């Protein structure tokens, strides 16, 4: 059975809410404490990105099952300006928002699967998955 939860990301307090919901789901899936911390941190980065670069968006939090293991899948979507150069955006230290440039590249290292779909003017969809060990 697949369960999911959808949350808007419209303000800084929503970023905090996203972290709390992701934490609860990570515990439900049975992720270890370190993996919970990693996926919540990645969620915080990606939620803030949606807010800063696209003016907001939403996240779908889904518990998935590949037949062997349970996992937590998060899909962050926005209708913002999109990312013109995806490899560049995934480079450590690259930023257009005045941050450290670790949000995207760092989040990718914190999860097991990372998929980024974006085009200029068409918004961004980032889907990440963390599997229970």
């Amino acid at each position: 059975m697949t369960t999911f939860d959808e949350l808007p990301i419209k303000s800084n307090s929503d970023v905090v809410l996203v972290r709390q919901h992701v934490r609860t789901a990570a515990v439900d899936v049975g992720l270890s404490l370190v993996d919970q911390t990693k996926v919540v941190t990645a969620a915080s980065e990606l939620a803030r990105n949606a807010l800063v670069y696209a003016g907001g968006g939403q996240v779908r939090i889904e518990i998935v099952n590949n037949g062997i293991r349970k996992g937590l899948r998060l899909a962050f979507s926005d209708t913002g300006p999109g990312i013109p150069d995806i490899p560049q955006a995934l480079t450590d230290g690259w930023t257009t928002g005045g941050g450290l440039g670790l949000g995207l590249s760092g989040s990718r290292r914190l999860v097991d699967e990372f998929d980024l779909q974006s085009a200029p003017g068409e918004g961004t969809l980032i889907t990440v998955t963390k599997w229970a060990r």
Partner: protein
Amino acid sequence: MDRVPVLKLGDILIVSIQIDLQDQSVLALQEDLADRVVATGARGVIIDITAVEIVDSFIGRMLATIAAISRMLDAETVVVGMRPAVAITLVELGLSLGGVRTALNLEKGVALLNHLDGAQIVTAAQ
């Protein structure tokens, strides 16, 4: 917005973060601490993150910025109580907080500040 209280103990300022920090609270804390360092002439700042479940790049950068601001205002900053899972995640994220001193707990943080202060006095006397 929640504000994080800044406590003074002797010439050390202590901040214990007990809430899930919003970005605005983080920025307010930076300003509050800079004001209090100058107003009290504190020589050290201890930031206790024992209760903090995650440190993302924004909060990590805030810790590094507070340390840099305090240093300019003649105070050293020590971050204490980082959880093991937070340390692992921060390093994997790519943020090793090179410019920030850490200690395992409040007691060791105070000892580190006392040690640093002693070293400065010795240097000044030479």
